C-alpha cells in the first residue's frame, strides 16, 4: 500500500514539476515574443484578430455579392448563429491547430543560447500551444462577450461537450505538431509544401466559412475527411444544439485525436534523441 502511495506521490511531484517547467517556458516564450512587437504581449491577440476579421469580411462580402447586394448576413447559418459567433467558433478551433502546426514545422527551439536539461522538445511544443490557446481563448471570449452584450442572446447549450471538443482538438493539434516536427526535419521542401497545404487546404475544408449542412450531400465527402471540420462543427453544435450537423461524428474526432496523439507520442519516444540533436545544434 505504501508503495502505491509513494508511486502516486512521485507521479504527482513529477507531473507538477513538468507542468511548472512548461508554464515557465510558456512565460519565457511570451516574454520573448512581447519584446519583438510594438504592442507587446497583445501582439498574440491582435494578429489572429486581424485574420479573423478578414475572414468574417470575406464571408459577409461573398454573401453580399451572391445575394445581389441585398443581404449582409451570413446566409442559412443566421438561423442559428450571429455571423461573428459562427466564425469565431470556427476560428477558436482551427487557429490553434494551424499555429501549432506551423510553429512545429519551423522547429522546436527556444531561440535562446541557454540550455536546460529538463526542457525537451515536447515541453516547448506544449508551451507554445498553451500560449496560443490562451490568446485564442481570450479573443473568442471577448468577441462572444461583445456579441452577447450587443444582441443579448446568451447561449451555450452543451458546455461539457464544448470542453471535450476543445481538449480533443488540442490533443490532435499537439499530435499533428509532433508528427510535423519529424517530417519537417527531413526536407525543407516538404516543410514548405506542408505549410502551403496547411494554409490552403485545411482552411477551406475545416468549415471556417461554411456549415456542413449548407453543402449539397454529394460534396460533403470532399470535406468530411478533415477531423478539424468535425471539431469546428461539433463546437458550434455545443453552442446551439439546434444547429444541424449531418455527417459529423464525435467518435471520428475522438479516434482521430487519440490515434494521432498516440502515434505521435510513440514516434517522439522512439526518436527523441534525433530530435534533440536537431534542436540543440
Amino acid at each position, binding site marked *: 500500500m505504501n508503495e502505491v502511495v509513494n508511486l502516486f506521490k512521485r507521479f504527482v511531484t513529477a507531473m507538477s514539476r513538468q507542468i*511548472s*517547467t512548461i*508554464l*515557465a*517556458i*510558456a*512565460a*519565457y516564450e*511570451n*516574454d520573448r515574443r*512581447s519584446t519583438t512587437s510594438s504592442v*507587446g*504581449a*497583445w501582439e*498574440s*491577440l491582435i494578429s489572429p484578430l486581424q485574420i479573423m476579421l478578414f475572414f468574417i469580411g470575406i464571408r459577409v462580402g461573398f454573401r453580399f455579392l451572391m445575394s445581389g447586394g441585398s443581404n449582409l448576413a451570413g446566409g*442559412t447559418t443566421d*438561423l442559428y448563429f450571429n455571423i461573428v459567433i459562427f466564425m469565431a467558433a470556427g476560428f477558436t478551433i482551427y487557429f490553434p491547430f494551424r499555429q501549432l502546426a506551423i510553429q512545429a514545422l519551423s522547429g522546436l527551439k527556444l531561440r*535562446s543560447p*541557454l*540550455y*536546460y*536539461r*529538463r526542457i525537451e522538445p515536447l515541453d516547448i511544443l506544449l508551451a507554445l500551444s498553451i500560449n496560443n*490557446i*490562451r*490568446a485564442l*481563448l*481570450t479573443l473568442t*471570449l471577448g468577441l462572444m462577450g461583445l456579441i452577447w452584450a450587443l444582441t443579448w442572446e446568451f447561449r*451555450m447549450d*452543451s*458546455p*461539457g*461537450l*464544448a*470542453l*471535450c471538443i*476543445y481538449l480533443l482538438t488540442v490533443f490532435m493539434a499537439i499530435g499533428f505538431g509532433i508528427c510535423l516536427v519529424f517530417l519537417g526535419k527531413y526536407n525543407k521542401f516538404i516543410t514548405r509544401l506542408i505549410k502551403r497545404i496547411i494554409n490552403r487546404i485545411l482552411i477551406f475544408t475545416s468549415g471556417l466559412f461554411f456549415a456542413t*449542412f449548407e453543402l449539397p450531400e454529394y460534396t460533403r465527402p470532399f470535406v468530411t475527411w478533415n477531423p478539424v471540420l468535425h471539431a469546428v462543427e461539433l463546437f458550434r453544435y455545443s453552442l446551439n*444544439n*439546434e444547429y*444541424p450537423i*449531418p455527417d459529423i461524428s464525435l467518435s471520428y474526432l475522438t479516434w482521430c485525436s487519440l490515434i494521432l496523439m498516440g502515434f505521435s507520442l510513440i514516434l517522439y519516444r522512439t526518436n527523441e534523441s534525433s530530435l534533440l540533436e536537431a534542436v540543440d545544434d
Partner: protein
Amino acid sequence: MPDSNQPSSSLSAGLNKLPSSFRLPDFLVADQLPPLWRERLARVARPRVLISTFLATSAFYCFVIGRDRYTAVSEFVIQQPAPLDGTSASVLAGAAAAPQVLTSLVDGQYLQVYLASSDIKTRLFPDGKKLELAYRPRLPDLWTGLSANSSAPAQLDFYRKQLSVAPQPMSGSVILTTSGFTPKQAFDLNSALLKESRRFVNEVNQSINAEQNKFARKEVQLAELNLKAASRKLELFRKTNGNLSVESEQAATSSFISGLESQLVELKVEEAALRRQYRDPNAPEVSFVADQVKELKVQIRQERERSVSKNGRDLNTLVLEEAGLISDVEFATATLQSARLASDNSRRDSQRQLKYVVVLSQAELPAAPDPNWRWQAFLASVGIIVVGWGVGGFILNAMRKS
C-alpha cells in the same frame, strides 16, 4: 565548472512569477487581520486549494445532491397530402418533396415559438400554484425547481427550460424534447405538447380554410343578388316601355323607314319618267304620282320624327338604356359564374391543403434518469477553470508586460 543544470534566469523568474497571478488582493491580507487568521486565510487562499474546492463542490452537487432529470423525446413532421395528379410518383418526386420540407420547417419554426409561449403554458398549467407544487424544490437539492410564490415571468421561464423544440432543416421534422423531475412529468408534458402541436396545426389550417370558404360563399351570394337586381331592372324597363326589345323594335322601324324610302325612290323615278312622257306637268297621271311622292316624304319624315323625338318613342335613348341594362345583366352573370368557380376551387383546395402532424417517434415513459446534465454541468465547471486560467493568465501577463 558552470552548473549546466541551472535554469536560465528568465525561466527561474517565470517559475517564481507564476503563482503571483493568483495571489489575493492586498486588502484581504491587510495588517488589520490577526496573525492567526492571516495565516489561515493564506493557507486557504492558495489557487490550488480554491480550484480543488470549486471542482469538489461542483462534483458533489452534480453527482450527489443534484436531482434526477428525466427526458422524453418525440419526433414529428407536419405534412400536407400529396396532390392527386400523381406527380409524386414521377422521377421528380425528390424535387417536389423539397417544398414539403420547407413548409414543414417553417411550420416547425412557428411551433417552436408557439409551444414556448405564455398562452400554451397557461393552457397546460392554468393554476400557477399547481405548477409550483409539481416542480417544487426538494431536499437535498434546494436550488433546482420552482420556488413557492414565484412570479409569472419566473414560471414562464421555468416552463421554457423544460422543453426544447428543434426543427430539422434537413428533413423538416421537429424534435420535441421535454424534461421533468419524474418520468411521468417528462412524458406527460411531451404528450400534452404534441397534442397542442396537433391542435395548432389543425386549428390554424382549418380556420384559414373556413375563412376562405366563407368568403367565397359570400361572394357567390352577392353575385346572385346582383344578377337578380340587374335582371329585375331590365324586366321592369321592358315592361314600362311596352316592348320586349327596344333594339329589335328600332331595327323594325329602321327597316320600315328604309322600305318607305325605297318606295319613294321608285315613285320618284316613275314621276320623272311621266314628266318626260307628258308635255303638261300638271297632267293627272303626273300629278297622281307627284302627290304620292309628296305624301310618302311626309310619311317618312313623320316616322323618323316619331321614332327619335322625345315626344315620340325616343328609340335611340331607349336602346342605349336597354344596352346598359343588358350589359349589367351579362356582367352579373359572368361574376356569378366566376364566384361559383372560385368557391368550388376554394372548397377543393381547403381539402387538399389540410396539414397533418405525423408522429415519427412517439415519446416513451423514461425508464432511467438522464445523466447528461450532470456531466454537462460538471464539465462546465472544469471549462470555467480552463477558460479562467487561459484568459485570466493571458490578460494578467499582458497587462504586466505593458
